[in-house]
Protein backbone atom coordinates (compact mmCIF):
# COMPACT_ATOMS: atom_id res chain seq x y z
CA UNK A 1 0.00 0.00 0.00
CA UNK A 2 1.12 3.53 -0.64
CA UNK A 3 -0.45 6.77 0.52
CA UNK A 4 -3.90 7.16 -1.03
CA UNK A 5 -4.40 10.90 -1.36
CA UNK A 6 -8.17 10.91 -1.66
CA UNK A 7 -8.58 8.63 1.34
CA UNK A 8 -6.36 10.88 3.47
CA UNK A 9 -8.03 14.06 2.26
CA UNK A 10 -11.48 12.77 3.08
CA UNK A 11 -10.42 11.57 6.52
CA UNK A 12 -8.74 14.87 7.41
CA UNK A 13 -11.39 17.09 5.87
CA UNK A 14 -13.92 15.50 8.22
CA UNK A 15 -12.01 16.73 11.28
CA UNK A 16 -13.82 19.75 12.62
CA UNK A 17 -11.57 22.80 12.51
CA UNK A 18 -13.13 25.40 14.73
CA UNK A 19 -11.90 27.70 17.48
CA UNK A 20 -11.72 26.28 21.04
CA UNK A 21 -12.89 28.18 24.16
CA UNK A 22 -10.03 30.67 23.61
CA UNK A 23 -11.02 31.11 19.98
CA UNK A 24 -7.82 29.39 18.89
CA UNK A 25 -7.25 26.24 16.81
CA UNK A 26 -4.19 24.36 18.04
CA UNK A 27 -3.50 21.43 15.68
CA UNK A 28 -0.53 19.82 13.92
CA UNK A 29 1.79 21.60 16.39
CA UNK A 30 0.73 25.06 15.19
CA UNK A 31 -2.11 27.54 15.64
CA UNK A 32 -4.43 27.17 12.66
CA UNK A 33 -6.70 29.84 11.20
CA UNK A 34 -9.50 29.52 8.67
CA UNK A 35 -9.89 32.70 6.64
CA UNK A 36 -11.58 33.55 3.37
CA UNK A 37 -9.18 32.58 0.58
CA UNK A 38 -9.84 36.04 -0.86
CA UNK A 39 -7.80 37.49 2.03
CA UNK A 40 -4.58 35.77 0.94
CA UNK A 41 -5.13 36.42 -2.76
CA UNK A 42 -6.09 40.05 -2.28
CA UNK A 43 -3.09 40.67 -0.05
CA UNK A 44 -0.66 39.20 -2.59
CA UNK A 45 -2.20 41.11 -5.48
CA UNK A 46 -2.36 44.48 -3.74
CA UNK A 47 1.22 44.12 -2.53
CA UNK A 48 2.35 43.26 -6.05
CA UNK A 49 0.44 46.27 -7.38
CA UNK A 50 1.96 48.54 -4.74
CA UNK A 51 5.58 48.02 -5.73
CA UNK A 52 7.19 49.63 -8.77
CA UNK A 53 8.23 47.43 -11.70
CA UNK A 54 11.83 47.13 -10.53
CA UNK A 55 10.72 45.69 -7.17
CA UNK A 56 8.19 43.11 -8.46
CA UNK A 57 10.79 40.33 -8.24
CA UNK A 58 11.63 41.29 -4.67
CA UNK A 59 7.95 41.18 -3.71
CA UNK A 60 7.41 37.87 -5.49
CA UNK A 61 10.33 36.35 -3.56
CA UNK A 62 8.99 37.75 -0.29
CA UNK A 63 5.55 36.25 -0.91
CA UNK A 64 7.07 32.85 -1.79
CA UNK A 65 9.28 33.04 1.29
CA UNK A 66 6.29 33.50 3.64
CA UNK A 67 4.92 30.17 2.44
CA UNK A 68 8.35 28.57 2.35
CA UNK A 69 9.18 29.27 5.99
CA UNK A 70 5.64 28.40 7.00
CA UNK A 71 5.77 25.17 4.98
CA UNK A 72 9.06 24.11 6.49
CA UNK A 73 7.97 24.49 10.11
CA UNK A 74 4.32 23.57 9.68
CA UNK A 75 5.25 20.68 7.40
CA UNK A 76 7.47 19.35 10.17
CA UNK A 77 4.60 19.76 12.62
CA UNK A 78 2.25 17.99 10.23
CA UNK A 79 4.39 14.90 9.61
CA UNK A 80 5.07 14.53 13.33
CA UNK A 81 1.52 15.15 14.49
CA UNK A 82 -0.84 12.64 16.03
CA UNK A 83 -3.28 13.32 13.20
CA UNK A 84 -0.65 12.35 10.60
CA UNK A 85 0.43 9.29 12.54
CA UNK A 86 -3.17 8.11 12.82
CA UNK A 87 -4.32 8.76 9.26
CA UNK A 88 -1.26 8.66 7.00
CA UNK A 89 1.46 6.57 8.60
CA UNK A 90 -0.43 3.26 8.36
CA UNK A 91 -0.26 3.66 4.56
CA UNK A 92 3.44 4.53 4.39
CA UNK A 93 5.44 1.74 2.75
CA UNK A 94 7.91 3.68 0.64
CA UNK A 95 9.71 5.80 3.26
CA UNK A 96 10.35 9.46 2.45
CA UNK A 97 8.43 9.29 -0.84
CA UNK A 98 5.27 8.22 0.94
CA UNK A 99 5.70 10.70 3.76
CA UNK A 100 5.92 13.37 1.07
CA UNK A 101 2.79 12.04 -0.62
CA UNK A 102 1.05 12.15 2.75
CA UNK A 103 2.18 15.73 3.34
CA UNK A 104 0.64 16.67 -0.02
CA UNK A 105 -2.58 14.96 0.97
CA UNK A 106 -2.70 17.19 4.06
CA UNK A 107 -1.82 20.14 1.82
CA UNK A 108 -4.88 19.26 -0.24
CA UNK A 109 -7.10 18.69 2.80
CA UNK A 110 -6.32 22.19 4.10
CA UNK A 111 -7.81 23.59 0.89
CA UNK A 112 -4.52 24.86 -0.56
CA UNK A 113 -4.68 22.92 -3.81
CA UNK A 114 -6.09 19.77 -5.32
CA UNK A 115 -2.62 18.58 -5.98
CA UNK A 116 -0.51 15.51 -6.34
CA UNK A 117 3.07 14.48 -6.98
CA UNK A 118 3.55 13.24 -10.54
CA UNK A 119 7.30 12.62 -10.42
CA UNK A 120 9.90 12.16 -7.72
CA UNK A 121 13.58 11.56 -8.29
CA UNK A 122 14.69 11.16 -4.71
CA UNK A 123 16.61 14.15 -3.39
CA UNK A 124 16.90 15.50 -6.96
CA UNK A 125 13.64 16.61 -8.47
CA UNK A 126 9.91 16.62 -7.86
CA UNK A 127 7.04 17.63 -10.12
CA UNK A 128 3.70 18.52 -8.56
CA UNK A 129 0.52 19.24 -10.48
CA UNK A 130 -2.60 20.95 -9.20
CA UNK A 131 -5.87 21.07 -11.12
CA UNK A 132 -7.51 23.46 -8.67
CA UNK A 133 -5.90 25.88 -6.23
CA UNK A 134 -7.16 29.05 -4.60
CA UNK A 135 -4.29 31.15 -5.88
CA UNK A 136 -5.52 30.59 -9.45
CA UNK A 137 -8.32 33.03 -8.56
CA UNK A 138 -6.00 35.87 -7.57
CA UNK A 139 -6.81 37.94 -10.65
CA UNK A 140 -3.29 39.03 -11.46
CA UNK A 141 -1.51 38.32 -14.72
CA UNK A 142 1.10 35.58 -15.04
CA UNK A 143 1.81 32.71 -12.66
CA UNK A 144 0.47 33.57 -9.19
CA UNK A 145 0.92 30.46 -7.04
CA UNK A 146 3.46 31.90 -4.61
CA UNK A 147 2.17 29.78 -1.73
CA UNK A 148 2.37 26.47 -3.58
CA UNK A 149 5.92 27.26 -4.71
CA UNK A 150 7.10 28.05 -1.21
CA UNK A 151 5.47 25.09 0.46
CA UNK A 152 6.62 22.66 -2.24
CA UNK A 153 10.31 23.44 -1.81
CA UNK A 154 9.87 23.28 1.97
CA UNK A 155 8.20 19.86 1.88
CA UNK A 156 10.93 18.48 -0.41
CA UNK A 157 13.57 19.75 2.01
CA UNK A 158 11.82 18.01 4.89
CA UNK A 159 12.00 14.76 2.93
CA UNK A 160 15.48 14.98 1.43
CA UNK A 161 17.62 17.82 2.81
CA UNK A 162 19.55 17.81 6.08
CA UNK A 163 17.43 16.86 9.07
CA UNK A 164 15.05 19.47 10.50
CA UNK A 165 15.79 22.27 11.34
CA UNK A 166 19.03 22.36 9.31
CA UNK A 167 17.73 21.61 5.84
CA UNK A 168 16.51 25.01 4.71
CA UNK A 169 17.75 26.78 1.59
CA UNK A 170 18.50 23.55 -0.26
CA UNK A 171 15.79 23.44 -2.96
CA UNK A 172 13.81 25.91 -4.99
CA UNK A 173 10.48 25.61 -6.78
CA UNK A 174 9.50 27.07 -10.14
CA UNK A 175 5.96 27.32 -11.42
CA UNK A 176 6.01 26.13 -15.04
CA UNK A 177 2.27 26.09 -15.81
CA UNK A 178 -0.73 27.83 -14.28
CA UNK A 179 -4.50 27.55 -14.57
CA UNK A 180 -4.47 31.33 -14.08
CA UNK A 181 -2.52 31.55 -17.36
CA UNK A 182 -4.92 29.34 -19.30
CA UNK A 183 -3.17 25.99 -18.74
CA UNK A 184 -5.16 22.90 -17.75
CA UNK A 185 -3.29 22.59 -14.48
CA UNK A 186 -0.63 24.27 -12.45
CA UNK A 187 2.77 22.61 -12.52
CA UNK A 188 5.53 23.07 -9.98
CA UNK A 189 9.08 21.79 -10.34
CA UNK A 190 11.35 21.47 -7.31
CA UNK A 191 15.09 21.22 -7.92
CA UNK A 192 18.29 21.87 -5.99
CA UNK A 193 19.28 25.51 -5.63
CA UNK A 194 22.13 26.27 -7.96
Amino acid sequence: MTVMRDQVVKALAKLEVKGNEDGLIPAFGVLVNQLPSSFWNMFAERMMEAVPRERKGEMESALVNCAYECGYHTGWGIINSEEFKAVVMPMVTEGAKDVLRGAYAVFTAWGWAKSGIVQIREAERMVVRAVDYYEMDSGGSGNRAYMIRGVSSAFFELAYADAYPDGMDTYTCTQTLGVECGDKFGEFVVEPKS
Partner: protein
Amino acid sequence: MLKVDFTFDDKTYRHAMNGHESVLHCHHYMSLTTKLAEDFADVGGVRILREVAEDSIRPLLDSYHQTHRVPTGDERLEVGREYYSVMGLGEMEISGDETGGQVKLHHSHVDEGWIKKWGKHDRFVNHFSCGFAAAVFAAAFDRPARSYLAKEKASIVIGDEMTVIAVTQA
Protein backbone atom coordinates in the same frame (compact mmCIF):
# COMPACT_ATOMS: atom_id res chain seq x y z
CA MET B 1 -25.33 31.79 18.57
CA LEU B 2 -23.58 32.02 15.22
CA LYS B 3 -24.73 29.43 12.70
CA VAL B 4 -21.77 28.17 10.73
CA ASP B 5 -21.95 25.70 7.90
CA PHE B 6 -18.53 24.30 7.03
CA THR B 7 -18.40 22.50 3.71
CA PHE B 8 -15.71 20.71 1.74
CA ASP B 9 -16.26 20.37 -1.99
CA ASP B 10 -15.55 16.79 -3.04
CA LYS B 11 -14.77 17.90 -6.58
CA THR B 12 -12.49 20.91 -6.10
CA TYR B 13 -11.33 20.06 -2.58
CA ARG B 14 -12.02 23.59 -1.42
CA HIS B 15 -13.41 24.56 1.96
CA ALA B 16 -16.21 27.04 2.50
CA MET B 17 -17.66 28.74 5.54
CA ASN B 18 -21.31 29.72 5.12
CA GLY B 19 -20.78 29.57 1.36
CA HIS B 20 -17.63 31.71 1.34
CA GLU B 21 -14.50 29.94 0.14
CA SER B 22 -12.00 29.56 2.93
CA VAL B 23 -8.63 28.02 3.52
CA LEU B 24 -6.63 26.79 6.50
CA HIS B 25 -3.28 28.35 7.26
CA CYS B 26 -1.13 28.59 10.37
CA HIS B 27 0.45 31.15 12.69
CA HIS B 28 3.75 30.94 10.81
CA TYR B 29 2.09 32.13 7.61
CA MET B 30 0.14 34.86 9.41
CA SER B 31 3.25 36.07 11.27
CA LEU B 32 5.38 36.09 8.12
CA THR B 33 2.64 37.90 6.21
CA THR B 34 2.43 40.51 8.96
CA LYS B 35 6.20 40.92 8.88
CA LEU B 36 6.18 41.19 5.10
CA ALA B 37 3.66 44.02 5.36
CA GLU B 38 5.95 45.78 7.84
CA ASP B 39 9.06 45.16 5.73
CA PHE B 40 7.32 46.87 2.82
CA ALA B 41 6.01 49.77 4.91
CA ASP B 42 7.50 52.16 2.34
CA VAL B 43 4.85 51.09 -0.19
CA GLY B 44 2.01 51.03 2.35
CA GLY B 45 2.28 47.37 3.38
CA VAL B 46 0.64 47.80 6.78
CA ARG B 47 -2.22 49.86 5.35
CA ILE B 48 -2.73 47.23 2.64
CA LEU B 49 -2.86 44.43 5.21
CA ARG B 50 -5.49 46.27 7.26
CA GLU B 51 -7.57 47.14 4.21
CA VAL B 52 -7.40 43.62 2.81
CA ALA B 53 -8.52 42.22 6.17
CA GLU B 54 -11.45 44.65 6.17
CA ASP B 55 -12.38 43.96 2.54
CA SER B 56 -12.16 40.18 2.75
CA ILE B 57 -14.08 39.83 6.04
CA ARG B 58 -16.87 42.26 5.19
CA PRO B 59 -18.67 40.03 2.62
CA LEU B 60 -19.02 37.21 5.20
CA LEU B 61 -20.56 39.60 7.71
CA ASP B 62 -22.90 41.28 5.22
CA SER B 63 -24.21 38.00 3.86
CA TYR B 64 -24.70 36.61 7.36
CA HIS B 65 -26.66 39.69 8.47
CA GLN B 66 -28.85 39.46 5.39
CA THR B 67 -29.39 35.70 5.42
CA HIS B 68 -30.22 35.57 9.13
CA ARG B 69 -31.90 38.98 9.25
CA VAL B 70 -29.71 40.32 12.05
CA PRO B 71 -31.41 43.64 12.77
CA THR B 72 -29.47 45.64 15.38
CA GLY B 73 -25.95 46.98 15.62
CA ASP B 74 -25.39 45.19 18.92
CA GLU B 75 -26.41 41.84 17.48
CA ARG B 76 -24.23 42.43 14.45
CA LEU B 77 -21.20 43.21 16.63
CA GLU B 78 -21.88 39.90 18.33
CA VAL B 79 -21.83 38.13 14.94
CA GLY B 80 -18.40 39.62 14.28
CA ARG B 81 -17.17 38.54 17.70
CA GLU B 82 -18.30 34.97 17.15
CA TYR B 83 -16.90 34.77 13.62
CA TYR B 84 -13.52 35.89 14.99
CA SER B 85 -13.40 32.87 17.30
CA VAL B 86 -14.77 30.42 14.76
CA MET B 87 -11.93 31.36 12.40
CA GLY B 88 -9.39 30.61 15.10
CA LEU B 89 -8.40 34.25 15.51
CA GLY B 90 -8.92 34.44 19.26
CA GLU B 91 -11.35 35.50 21.95
CA MET B 92 -12.92 38.90 21.41
CA GLU B 93 -15.02 41.21 23.56
CA ILE B 94 -16.63 44.02 21.57
CA SER B 95 -18.74 47.04 22.48
CA GLY B 96 -19.78 50.28 20.87
CA ASP B 97 -22.25 52.04 18.63
CA GLU B 98 -22.24 53.79 15.26
CA THR B 99 -19.73 56.35 16.55
CA GLY B 100 -17.17 53.68 17.38
CA GLY B 101 -16.19 51.51 20.30
CA GLN B 102 -13.66 49.13 21.70
CA VAL B 103 -12.41 45.65 20.98
CA LYS B 104 -10.59 43.61 23.60
CA LEU B 105 -8.76 40.46 22.60
CA HIS B 106 -8.25 38.10 25.52
CA HIS B 107 -6.59 35.68 23.12
CA SER B 108 -5.21 36.49 19.70
CA HIS B 109 -3.93 34.22 16.93
CA VAL B 110 -1.85 37.09 15.52
CA ASP B 111 -0.23 38.16 18.80
CA GLU B 112 0.17 34.71 20.32
CA GLY B 113 1.32 33.30 16.97
CA TRP B 114 3.98 36.02 16.75
CA ILE B 115 5.16 35.25 20.28
CA LYS B 116 5.21 31.51 19.52
CA LYS B 117 7.35 32.18 16.46
CA TRP B 118 9.63 35.04 17.49
CA GLY B 119 8.90 35.94 21.11
CA LYS B 120 7.56 39.23 22.41
CA HIS B 121 7.88 42.35 20.31
CA ASP B 122 8.39 46.03 21.04
CA ARG B 123 5.50 47.33 18.94
CA PHE B 124 1.94 46.50 17.85
CA VAL B 125 1.58 43.91 15.10
CA ASN B 126 -2.12 43.09 15.06
CA HIS B 127 -2.89 44.91 11.83
CA PHE B 128 -5.11 42.06 10.67
CA SER B 129 -7.42 42.40 13.68
CA CYS B 130 -7.62 46.17 13.20
CA GLY B 131 -8.97 45.51 9.71
CA PHE B 132 -11.29 42.86 11.08
CA ALA B 133 -12.64 45.29 13.70
CA ALA B 134 -13.18 48.01 11.06
CA ALA B 135 -15.16 45.49 8.98
CA VAL B 136 -17.31 44.45 11.96
CA PHE B 137 -18.25 48.05 12.82
CA ALA B 138 -18.89 49.06 9.20
CA ALA B 139 -21.05 45.98 8.61
CA ALA B 140 -22.90 46.47 11.91
CA PHE B 141 -23.88 50.04 11.10
CA ASP B 142 -24.24 49.78 7.30
CA ARG B 143 -21.29 52.01 6.54
CA PRO B 144 -18.97 51.78 3.54
CA ALA B 145 -15.43 50.45 3.79
CA ARG B 146 -12.90 52.76 5.53
CA SER B 147 -15.64 54.36 7.66
CA TYR B 148 -13.85 53.34 10.84
CA LEU B 149 -10.28 53.66 12.06
CA ALA B 150 -9.06 50.90 14.31
CA LYS B 151 -5.96 51.49 16.38
CA GLU B 152 -4.21 49.29 18.91
CA LYS B 153 -3.85 50.74 22.40
CA ALA B 154 -2.46 47.67 24.17
CA SER B 155 -1.17 44.35 22.98
CA ILE B 156 -0.45 40.83 24.13
CA VAL B 157 2.61 40.85 21.85
CA ILE B 158 4.29 43.60 23.86
CA GLY B 159 3.40 42.01 27.18
CA ASP B 160 0.03 43.54 28.02
CA GLU B 161 -2.64 41.31 29.54
CA MET B 162 -4.85 41.72 26.48
CA THR B 163 -4.89 43.46 23.13
CA VAL B 164 -7.12 46.53 23.05
CA ILE B 165 -8.25 48.16 19.82
CA ALA B 166 -10.01 51.52 19.79
CA VAL B 167 -12.45 52.01 16.93
CA THR B 168 -13.40 55.53 15.88
CA GLN B 169 -15.18 57.07 12.94
CA ALA B 170 -12.80 57.95 10.12
